[in-house]
């Protein structure tokens, strides 16, 4: 059984927050939902987690007690210690305390939180609090784990601990859906859904999204980055089909069949955003 959602629509007043969006979340895989602020990621994830009902469309999700959900607000109680937060979660899900504590201890160890067990959650750094939130959501061994931007604003060291937890949940057979604004993180996931203003901008595996990119890309030295000399640079190519990346100008030609380099996921998603900008 694959969890997910089909043809969801959510409105807030006149704003269409989620506009006919479908997503699959297969067991044992991590699915990324990518987009900037206001793209509709949180609304979609709330629907998947059962925290919000869509206007139309259907959500495929397991029973309530088999869903783990980390809201973007981190989902832990600041006035409880790390251990108390996890005990409380275990009680709420009616887990056997000793088994839950054993699992929690292993996750805490791997996430580098063991020494913080007796600290109040409100006094942890942002990254540590996120890791605690993910551990709490993982504790009942959910079949579907929904994580709303677990890594935003988190430093690289805590991020690595978070990714270990996420991989561990998927390795145990859980379907993981996570929101992120970063495509290098999405590239680590088995499949990717890119949202923009509530609509699907691109979807598939990273390779599929790249293969589906219309046209081709050319590049030119833009100077100033990676140690290149500013003198060697070329002027910005005209028009909205050019952008800057890693010291290069990238230019999208929608009609070309061959470019001068192989695009990656970030390039393909940028092209999709430009194509949408040009249309509107």
């Amino acid at each position: 059984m694959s969890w997910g959602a089909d043809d969801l629509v959510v409105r807030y007043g006149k704003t269409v927050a989620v506009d006919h969006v479908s997503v699959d979340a297969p067991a044992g895989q991590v699915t990324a939902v990518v987009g900037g602020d206001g793209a509709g990621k949180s609304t979609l994830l709330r629907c998947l987690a059962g925290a919000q009902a869509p206007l139309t469309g259907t959500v495929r999700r397991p029973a309530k007690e088999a869903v783990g959900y980390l809201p973007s607000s981190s989902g832990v109680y600041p006035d409880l210690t790390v251990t108390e937060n996890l005990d409380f979660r275990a009680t709420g899900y009616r887990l056997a305390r000793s088994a839950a504590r054993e699992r929690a201890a292993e996750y805490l160890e791997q996430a580098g939180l063991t020494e913080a067990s007796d600290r109040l959650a409100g006094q942890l750094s942002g990254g540590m609090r996120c890791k605690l939130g993910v551990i709490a959501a993982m504790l009942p061994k959910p079949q579907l784990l929904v994580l709303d931007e677990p890594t935003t604003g988190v430093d690289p060291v805590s991020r690595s601990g978070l990714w270990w937890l996420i991989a561990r949940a998927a390795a145990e057979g859980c379907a993981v859906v996570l929101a992120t604004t970063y495509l290098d993180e999405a590239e680590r996931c088995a499949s990717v859904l890119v949202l923009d203003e509530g609509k699907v901008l691109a979807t598939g595996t990273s390779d599929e999204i790249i293969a589906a990119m219309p046209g081709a890309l050319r590049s030119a030295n833009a100077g100033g980055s990676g140690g290149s000399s500013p003198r060697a640079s070329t002027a910005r190519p005209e028009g909205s089909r050019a952008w800057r990346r890693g010291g290069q100008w990238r230019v999208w030609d929608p009609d070309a069949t061959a470019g001068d380099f192989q695009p990656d996921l970030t390039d393909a998603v940028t092209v999709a955003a430009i194509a949408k900008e040009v249309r509107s």
Partner: protein
Amino acid sequence: MSPLARLTGVTKKFGEFTAVKDVDLNVEPGEIVGLLGANGAGKTTVIKMLLGLIGTTAGTVELFGQPPSRQTRRRLGYVPQSLGLYDDLTTMENLEFSAAAFGGKPGVKDTAIPDAIKQYGKDLIGALPLGVQRRVAFAQALEHEPDLLILDEPTSGVDPLGRARLWETIAGAAQAGAGVLVTTHYMEEASECSRLVIMAGGAVVAAGTAQEIIGTSQAVVVLAQSWADAFGRLEDAGLPVSLAGRGVRVPGARSEDVQRALGDLPAVVQDVPATLEERFFELVQGS
């Protein structure tokens, strides 16, 4: 030409705690210097010293060849992580206030207002989407044509195209001759910088271009029928395994060790150059 900003042997202690240890750092005109590090590495303390908000315990900070002061602040543009805008003023009022505080001629230069924010001139900042607010914060920091631009996590929460446009603005300022010091948690953005400085535990642990910092560091990529089985076996062997699309990566490991840990599990094992993020971990853990 002397550097726009120069830290020489700078140490900063807060009580018993040493936040910054013997740091040397230069920013030259026309270059973008990326300051990377985990939380608590000392990045924010370095920025506060450059802004003149706190002094040093030892060593010297120079901006434009002088100690930080109100005069040096005038030549500096700063975008804090929180953006530093007034929610209950409009876009134009924010820009006018800032221009007045920097002591320029009355009003805001029309050329300093990007087309993308013109239509929001009379809207209260607090009511605008974060992406627009961020453009306003950039316009505000650039309006007085600063010689040095300091950006703290400038692209947090921005979509890829929006991020490319912001980096175009940053690079434009650098090509016009300004120096830029930028902090980020995202290694993907490090490729936008001319030079990187990596801090850990208050000290500089590496500096140079991304290629120079990665050097010959390697990682092992494993593609197996079932990534979860590969993950489990490598983890049981105590290797630092991480998820990578439909496979896994083991940074800093040797392919023989990975092969041995996988045992009879059918898998393709390949040595590849480490990513900057993987190298970052080696450096931070080694410090």
